[in-house]
Every structure is written in C-alpha cells, then in structure tokens.
C-alpha cells in the first residue's frame, strides 16, 4: 500500500532501494487511470514525461543525491505554468496554451527531484468555490461523488484525498486551498503572502494569490513547503527573508501556546461544526495550550471587501487574454473589436465574466472611491484587527468552512451563497496571513476542517500545531471508501 505512505516513508523506501521512483510513478499513474474517471481531478496527464522524470530521479539517487522529495510524484494545479505542457487554468481561453516556461514553484519542485504526473482540474482562473466553473467539468469529491470537492483547487484537493499522488500543489486567493482541503479531508497550507513566488502562477488577484500545498499530513506539507518557499527576484512581492526549517519545528511542545478563538467565527456556527471545533480545542488544551476569546470587529466585512478587491484586480489581470498573442481566438474576426469581443466572450465562462464585469465596474470613474478605495480601507482595518489579535495570542483557531461539502449543482446558480462559503478563509488573504486547514472530524460522513491562522511568517508554528494535533488524532489518516 505504497500510496498510503507519508512522504518521509516514501523517501526512506526510495533511498533503501526497496522501490524506485519509476515504480512509484507507475503505481500512481495506475491509480489515476483507475480512479480518476470518477473524479475528473486532472485536466492533463503527463505519463510519459513523468516516467522520464522518475528515471532521472532514480539516476540522481543512484549517483548519491539525497533529498526528501527526490523521486516523489506530485500533481500541479493547472494554474502553474509548466514548460512544454498545456497550462489551461481551467479555461477554454487557455485550452490550447502550452506554457513556454516553468513557474518558480514548478522549477523549485523540479529541482528537488519531484515527478509531475499531470495537471489538476480547477475552477476557471481560480474563480469559484466548488470546482464547477472549470471548462473541463466539475471535480467530484472522493468522499461522495455527488458532492463538490470545494474550489478553486478542487482537482488538487480531490487528487490528494484519493491518493492519486503523494501530494499536490494549489493556490489560495480567498480560501482556494483551505476550503477544498477541509471538504476533502486533507491538510492544506496557504503560506504568508510573499513567502512563495507567484512567478509563473497565472494571476487571479495579485495582492491575494498565494501558492501552497495539499498533503496527507502537516509533516508532509512541511517537507513540501520547505522546497517551495523562498525569495524569487522575478516576483517583486516575494519576500527576501530566511526560510526556517519547517520539518525541524514540527515537534516543538505547545505548552503555553496561546490560542485565540475568534468570536466572529463562532457566532452562529452550526452546532455539529462547533462541537468538532470544541473537541479539537480539548486536544490543544491537553497539549498545554491556553485558549482565549478574541474579537476582530471588522472581520464580518471580509466577504464584501474581497468581492471588490479580487474582481478589480482580476478585471485588469485578465485583459491580456485578448486573442492576439496566445490562447483562444475566435474564428474569422471581422475587425479588432470583433476579435476582442468574441475571443473573450467565447473564451471565458460565466463566473469569470461576472467577476471581470464587477471589477471593471468598481474601478470605473465615479465608482472607484465608493468601492475600490473603500474596500482598501476596510482591508486595512481587517489587517489591523488581526495585528491587534496577534498581540494577545500566538494563533487563531476556528472552522475552515460553515458546512461540509455540498451537492454539485446546489449553489452554482446563486453566486452570493457560493461566495459565503469562503466566509472564514478570506480574512487571512486580505491580511496576507498564513492559514492551514486540517481534518478534525466528520459531519454525515463528510470531512470537516479546522483552520489555524497565524501572524506573518508563522508557517513553522502552524505546521507544528497541526502536526501535534495529528499525532493525537487520526482524522487525517482516514481515507474515503474505495481510495484506501
């Protein structure tokens, strides 16, 4: 049962020669072939390149190279540019786009010796919370294929939960790693804004986007984040600060850790959800942590603030998709305007268009102050609220989502209800804070997530807190039936 092993265990098996990367890669490719048709978690499979990369990793290992990710198979969210491989961003617009370069995240993980099996399905341009806006069709939740896996990194989450790879990458603009991680029962980490390079990651909302990881445990996530994080001179918003040793920090005792309980997260929280969080807090108290109630008065404004800032940035970021240089171009354009209108009209899906229109509106003359500028001010207030809270506590704990995975089709026609699914995750993006979701139990057989949010650059502490929780529980090692 190699696919159930942790990255650490796989590494040991590889270095002992018990298995080769090629064998491991074949095993995961076979799982994808068998299990993915029911899930639709992948847009592109790169089996041939994967076997070549695995063989190369085996040679590197034979030559004496070590490294925790050498020869480990992964799946990248299809938002990361991958040299020579289609990078669709879940959109018809880029269905024909083969990236001519590797994103920094891809390059770093490649250098670490990982083996890419394919590209994961996602909401179109990362806009969605259910993976239903993808041009390639919805992804199914392995725990119940009538349910969504969450979004926008739905394919990455489902693939990690179904063990189609040792780990997967994702991006989180408003919860796109943490929410699907919660809904599929895996551990998802969204690092501090600027911790991981955005270069080569197709932009949705530049000031909010951050790359991260889906793994079966915090310990695995620590290994992956170690390889992903760090300054990139090609991303002006990446931060030139040393990267701590995440795996080494996993076992630090939590005695005296001050955990903040966000009043705004618990007000009106569904009883079963609240009870799971309550159970988790008991474990943390047992590990020596203290819990304190804190309040972030402006946090309830997160969703409306986000739905001004993110669309504003996306309306501009997506202007480059104009049918001129790459991507979808309409047939027989009559003139320039026709080329623009039809290429964009036919290339983009409904949710993307909705956000481009919203964003264009809030940036328009006469509306800019009332929407964009006001939203930026509220964003500052939310950031200040978090800062004040972190003067009292080391990290904040709450639910990742209000409910477990919902049915495919249930919310797609009601954008506002859909948007509210991110109510607990958006705050961390607006403030640029790291967040982590880890499995903490089930409601009606569907996994639920516990969310940890820390101050800037506290990834080591979040992983540490998640790891010790996972040492005391086994929620993270449960697998959906049929994928064990």
């Amino acid at each position, binding site marked *: 049962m190699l696919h159930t092993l942790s990255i650490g265990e796989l590494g040991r098996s590889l270095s002992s020669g018990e298995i080769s990367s090629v064998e491991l890669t074949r095993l995961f490719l076979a799982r994808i072939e068998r299990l993915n048709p029911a899930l639709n978690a992948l847009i592109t499979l790169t089996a041939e390149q994967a076997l070549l990369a695995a063989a190369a990793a085996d040679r590197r290992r034979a030559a004496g190279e070590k490294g925790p990710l050498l020869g480990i198979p992964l799946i990248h969210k299809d938002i990361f540019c991958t040299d020579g491989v289609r990078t669709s961003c879940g959109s018809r617009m880029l269905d024909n786009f083969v990236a001519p*370069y590797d994103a920094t995240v891809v390059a770093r993980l490649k250098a670490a010796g990982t083996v890419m099996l394919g590209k994961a399905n996602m909401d179109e341009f990362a806009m969605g919370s259910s993976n239903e806006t993808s041009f390639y069709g919805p992804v199914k939740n392995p725990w119940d294929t009538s349910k969504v896996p969450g979004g926008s990194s739905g394919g990455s989450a489902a693939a990690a939960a179904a063990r189609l790879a040792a780990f997967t990458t994702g991006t989180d603009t408003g919860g796109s790693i943490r929410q699907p991680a919660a809904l599929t029962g895996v551990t998802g980490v969204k690092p501090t804004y600027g911790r991981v390079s955005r270069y080569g990651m197709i932009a949705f909302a530049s000031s909010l986007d951050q790359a991260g990881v889906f793994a079966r445990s915090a310990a695995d996530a620590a290994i992956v984040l170690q390889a992903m994080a760090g300054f990139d001179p090609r991303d002006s*918003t990446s931060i030139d600060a040393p990267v701590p040793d995440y795996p080494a920090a996993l076992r630090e005792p939590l005695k005296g850790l001050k955990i903040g309980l966000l009043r705004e997260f618990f007000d009106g929280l569904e009883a079963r959800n609240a009870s799971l969080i309550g159970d988790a807090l008991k474990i943390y108290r047992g590990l020596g942590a203290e819990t304190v109630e804190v309040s972030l008065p402006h946090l309830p404004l997160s969703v409306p603030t986000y739905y001004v800032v993110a669309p504003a940035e996306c309306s501009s970021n997506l202007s*480059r998709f104009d049918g001129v240089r790459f991507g979808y171009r309409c047939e027989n354009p009559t003139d*320039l305007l026709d080329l*623009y209108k039809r290429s964009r009209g036919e290339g983009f899906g409904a949710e993307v268009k909705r956000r481009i229109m919203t964003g264009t509106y809030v940036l*328009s003359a006469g509306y800019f102050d009332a929407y964009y500028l006001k939203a930026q001010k509220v964003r500052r207030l939310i950031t200040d609220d978090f800062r004040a809270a972190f003067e009292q506590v080391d990290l904040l704990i709450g639910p990742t989502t209000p409910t477990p995975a919902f049915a495919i089709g249930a919310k797609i026609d009601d954008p506002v209800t859909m948007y509210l699914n991110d109510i607990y995750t958006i705050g961390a993006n607006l403030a640029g804070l790291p967040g982590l979701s880890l499995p903490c139990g089930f409601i009606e057989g569907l996994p639920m997530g516990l969310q940890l949010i820390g101050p800037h650059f506290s990834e080591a502490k979040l992983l540490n807190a998640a790891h010790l929780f996972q040492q005391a529980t086994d929620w993270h090692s449960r697998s959906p039936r049929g994928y064990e």
Partner: protein
Amino acid sequence: MADWEVVIGLEIHAQLATKSKIFSGSATAYGAPPNTQASLVDLAYPGVLPVLNAEAVRMAVKFGLSIGAEVARHSVFARKNYFYPDLPKGYQISQYELPVVKKGKLKVMLDDGAVKIIGVTRAHLEEDAGKSLHEGLANATGIDLNRAGTPLLEIVSEPDMRGAKEAVAYMKKIHTLVRYLEICDGNMQEGSFRCDANVSVRPRGRDKFGTRAEIKNLNSFRFVEKAINYEVARQIELLESGGTVVQETRLYDSDKDETRSMRSKEEANDYRYFPDPDLLPLEIDEGFVATVRSTLPELPDEKAARFAQELGLSAYDAGVLSASRELGAYFEAVVAELGATNAKLAANWVMGELSSALNRDNVEITQSRVSPAALRGLLARIVDATISGKIAKDVFEEMWSQGEAVDDIIEAKGLKQITDSGAIEGVIDAVIAANPKQVADYRSGKDKLFGFFVGQVMKATGGKANPTQLNDLLKAKLSS
C-alpha cells in the same frame, strides 16, 4: 476682434537610455528586427511579473534633482487599463496619483533674450507600448513589441507657455537637459523624445482657461511650432465665428500642416487607474538621492553662468555655447590655452565659422573635421597677428576641407601677415604715388576715401598687411 491669449502645456515623453527595459531584462536598442527584443514579460505571457529596473529610477531622480524638484520618497506604480494590440497586458504600467518627481521649474531663454520660468508639474516613470505596423501587410496588422516596456519619463509642464515659440524653447531646454544628464539620447526621429501639446486660447485678461485640445505625438521642434500655430488659429477662428472648442485629442498631419480630431472627451477611455499589485510602492531613501546628486554634471544654466562670469561672455553667447554638453566642451577646449581675454574671439568662431560648417555638412560637433586644438591653433595665429581674421576664415575653410594644420597652410600659401612697417610703408608710398587725385580729394576733406587706400594696399599685399599697422601708417602718410 478680441485679443486672444494662448495657453500651452506640454507633456514630454523622454525615452530613458537604460540598457534594458523598465520591467524586464530585454534590450532597448532601436531598430532590431520585429519582436526580437520582446521577452515573455514584454509579451505579457500568463504568469509573468514585472520587476522594476533600478537604473530607470536613478535616471528619473537625476532629472528631478536637475529641475530642483522634490523627489518623492514614496511613489506608486499604477495600471492604466485599455485594450490595444500593441499593449500586450491590456494595461500600461505608469504612475498616476503619486509620481516619483514632484513640482520643479525650468529657466527658459526666449528669442528676445528674456528669461521665463516654466513650471514642471511632475515627472513620472512609465513603460512604452509596442508598435502596430500596417505597411506591406494586406488585411492584417503587424505588431512589433520591441518597444513595449521601454522606460519613459513623462515630464508634465504647467500651462505656463503663451505661444508656440515659448513651447519650443521649453521643449528644447528639456531636450538639452536630458542629454546633459545622459538619461535620454534625445533622438526625435527614432521617437526617443516626443511630446503632446495641450493648447487653449482665452480672451486676454480672463483668469479661466479655455477648453483645451491635446495634440498627440509631436516628434520635432518644427512640428510642435506648426501644430500649435495651426491649432491656435483654428480655435480662434472657431470662437470668433461663434463656435465652441470641444475637449478632444487631435493629431497633427505634417503633410497637410493641420490638426484633426482623433477622439472627443466622450469617446475617451475610462482608464480605471489603480495601484499595480504586482509592484511594491517605490521607496526612495535619502542616501539614494544623495548618491544620485553626486553624479549630477554641471547643468546648462550653471555652465552658462560660469561662461558669462569667468569668460565675460554675453548672456546670449553663454546660452548658445552651453546648449549642449558637447558644444560646451568643444568651446572650453578651444578657450583653454587662449585664455579668458580671447574668450569672445573663441565664442565668435565656434558660433560662427565652426557652427556654419557643421550645419552645412551636417556633421555632429563630436565628429568635427576641425578639432578644438586645431581651431585653437588658428585663433592663436590671429591673436599673435600672424594672420588677420579675414585671412583666418580662408585658412579655416582649408583646414575643414583638407584637414591640414594651420601653420602648414599659412606657410604653403604664403598667408603670413606683413607686420614689417618698412614693407607696409613701401606699399603705401606706391599707392599714394599712383593715385594723386584721390590723395588731393582726401586731403581736401573726403574722409571716406580712407577705405579706398586701405583697399588698394590690401590688394597689393594680397590682404596680408596687418590691418592695425596699415591704418596707423596710412593715416600718418596721408596727413603729412
């Protein structure tokens, strides 16, 4: 007919002379085959990000310091959103509310020698767009993105100019300045230096500005003057016939010498400016400014003042000779050993014979066929009275066309001035003897005939008689 006052403000785009683009590592060299200097960043490929070129910032700061402007410690790059095929990202990265260079001012000398202060509102960094090419393409438009991302400094003036000539004088001064600072090559044909002119008219004495038209993309001083003059006449005619000027963007057609409407305010884009989230605000500290300040060269106004003060040149001469760094350097090299007492002579020669030869043969001063040292040698022969100024002009032509040394020409052609009093006296005696009637007339009061005798002596000596000596001796002989 009312008395109209013209109001002009200029937005000058100076292409910064950086080696690479403002947000990518691509080269900025002009004239490469289409799209050979366009990287993935310039092509706005999915996922790419801009990284600011520090050299462009340094150049902008240099400019700011040279006009006495405050350099913003905190400025912000913003996105100007509009769709156009030569704008790959669908937005231009520029600076909007917070530019890097704040208010400054510039002294401009007008044709009548008067000095006027023109305010500079701001200068900001931005990227240039690519080019759309239509020639040689049937039913298609070519896009060349070599220029996309080239750094520009947009220098915005106050509406302080009151006529086309003032506008040109201001533009020339900025042109001089950016070349002094070596931040722009000033090549207007290649589009490295161009401007948009905002033009309006109002009845003289009224405070409120008239409605303005913006004339886009003027790339020569002559076109600026002609376009403004055309536009002023058009607006006055329109107003006097009861019409109103509409706010619009106009294009100048140099073939027809007219401006015509491009788009009105109503059709104008809503650019939806907002801070670019891919770039952090530009923070400039005191140390950076101080470092840049230490690299400032002597500026044109400072050089002109020094020429006037130390060399006793007129304000006009000092202004002309400091108009370019190269001209100033040439002049100073000429003056170097001749000394301040001969500065006026050197100035006259550099601005006169040398400049006309350069213009006539279309040669840059740095490529002059007569080097500063050679010209200095020629002037030294005037100063030491070896040759007269008049002969010197012939020698100069010889030096220019043949490239020979001054003394060789004087020697070979026997042009050495006659300074031997005895020799000159001999010639004078012969002339007096040959023209008894003129001598009698002169002595009876026809003073004007003095010139006739000078001419005769010069003719006889081949122009080589020392004029001062000739004058003195001739006067003495005629009145004896």
